[in-house]
């Protein structure tokens, strides 16, 4: 299988403080990998480094995506090349309606790829076909982006964006946090619907629960900025039973 994402001995710092301390992993096209780890282990930091957030500095190592060094690209270029990050805390943007945002983002990506932009009607139709399955209402689309959305609504909108942009590498940062069981199922169905041989996913989660619904090919356990243990989907159950502390101790 083709390597889609290869992270090699990645060291990254935020505000001069090293958070990722030699992280390596490889995800092939078609695979879904989970990253699990305690709070503060560096999961969100990894997601931001992958998306190219300013202030998250790679001090050594490399991120290679489809054979290309990601570090050289600004966030918008990564998005246009098919990298998508569903954020742990989606940002509220007053004054920009959700639909306007979706259209602007979709067309910006298309423009960057040299594709024809879509008119408002086509975008609306496309959004509607994706929105109903995720129970994103017309009314939500008219509201300012994420403003006044519940936790579950925000996460559903992240997944809606994922299905709209059809990325080839999707990173989901704790998309399950704050969701009740129905919302979790909805989100997981949305994610599973996008599983495909030419798409890879990195599912970041604190809890095993999500992985009952999105069954990963591989699990990596992150602790203090490093992968300390790897295994198949059964590792999630072991983590659930023993707790992170024990697993990290065993691995040391």
């Amino acid at each position: 299988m083709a390597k889609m994402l290869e992270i090699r001995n990645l060291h990254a710092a935020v505000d001069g403080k090293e958070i990722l301390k030699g992280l390596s992993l490889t995800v092939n096209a078609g695979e879904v990998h989970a990253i699990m780890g305690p709070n503060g282990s560096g999961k969100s930091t990894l997601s931001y480094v992958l998306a190219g957030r300013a202030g998250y500095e790679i001090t050594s190592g490399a991120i290679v995506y489809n054979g290309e060094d990601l570090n050289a690209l600004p966030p918008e270029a990564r998005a246009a090349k098919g990298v998508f990050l569903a954020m742990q805390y989606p940002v509220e943007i007053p004054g920009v309606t959700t639909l306007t945002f979706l259209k602007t983002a979709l067309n910006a990506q298309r423009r960057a790829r040299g594709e024809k932009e879509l008119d408002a009607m086509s975008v609306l139709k496309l959004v509607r076909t994706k929105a109903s399955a995720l129970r994103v209402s017309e009314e939500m689309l008219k509201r300012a982006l994420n403003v006044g959305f519940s936790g579950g609504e925000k996460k559903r909108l992240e997944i809606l964006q994922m299905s709209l942009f059809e990325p080839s590498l999707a990173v989901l940062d704790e998309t399950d946090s704050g969701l009740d069981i129905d919302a979790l199922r909805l989100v997981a169905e949305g994610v599973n619907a996008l599983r495909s041989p030419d798409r890879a996913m990195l599912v970041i989660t604190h809890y095993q629960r999500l992985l009952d619904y999105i069954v990963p090919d591989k699990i990596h356990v992150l602790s203090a900025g490093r992968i300390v243990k790897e295994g198949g989907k059964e590792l999630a159950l072991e983590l659930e039973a023993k707790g992170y502390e024990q697993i990290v101790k065993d691995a040391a």
Partner: protein
Amino acid sequence: MNAPGAAEDFRAKGVPHRRVEAWKYTDLKSAVDVEQVASATAAQWTLESEGAEPIDFHDGGFAGAMGEASMAFAEAGFGLRVAKAGKVRVNFATPGQARVRLVVEPGAVLEYIETAEGDGFQNIGLDVSIGEGAAFTHVRIAREGRGVRIEDVNATVAARGTYRLQAAHFGSELSRLELKIALNGESAAAHLSGVSVLDARHADITTHIVHAHGDTESTQLFKHVAAGRARAVYQGRITVAEGADGSDSRQTAKALLLDERAEADLKPELEIFADDVKCAHGAAVDDLDADSLFYLRARGIPDDEARGLLIRAFLGEAFDGASDETRALLWAPVEEAL
């Protein structure tokens, strides 16, 4: 006050400067002296009006020192009275001084669309009296200029009357819109909103709303975007007079600084002499939000476009209450300036 009295008083006090509290952020004395103000020529304007009849422009009052100067020294001006429905468009394109007096009769409606442009020293004094149940809408576009540009507005609003301001300011070397609005009868209201979009220019909005009567309402929302060495000023004073119970006032001023050298001074001020009143005020100076910017870029929107989207969203809120036509009128120069 008559003109000789105003002249004597203005000469005695001199041109306001930054040690005068109300002019702390607009040091007018650094730009003009008393003689320049006293001998300024008559401003010229173009005027289109419907539904209005001429009246004498000499009467009326003023909000601050420069309004007094316009009383004292302006030789030109116009006065209009609206009995039913009027629409007035005026463009002040030259330096100089002028007085304007508007009377909106009880139950009447007047839309006053004003643009100010050009360089040099321009000082316009406007006196508006709004009768019972009358509605006055003041749309103001002050284009970017290089001189000193002042407008001083003195308004009185009778019961159930409304003063509505919708403004777009683009700054000058020194510029100021000063308003004093007295809400003199039950359910009189003032709703002021506007934006300043400044690139290396100065714009000052100074308001004083006097809730002279109970059960009056005022709302204010001003948004400033400042780039380069721009300086945005908002001073909002609210006075609730003794006995003006049930008054409700809200004011918000926000500034977005796009450059480290840009500056914003936002100063709300409350003077409350009544008991049962609602007053809410807020002021905030920020940079563009880094989280928002990252979010948009991570979804493929290029940096420039993402900034533009956030700036427009920030400013747009100021015109939420405007009619489509007015919003389009105010938004066109905003787009040009961004």
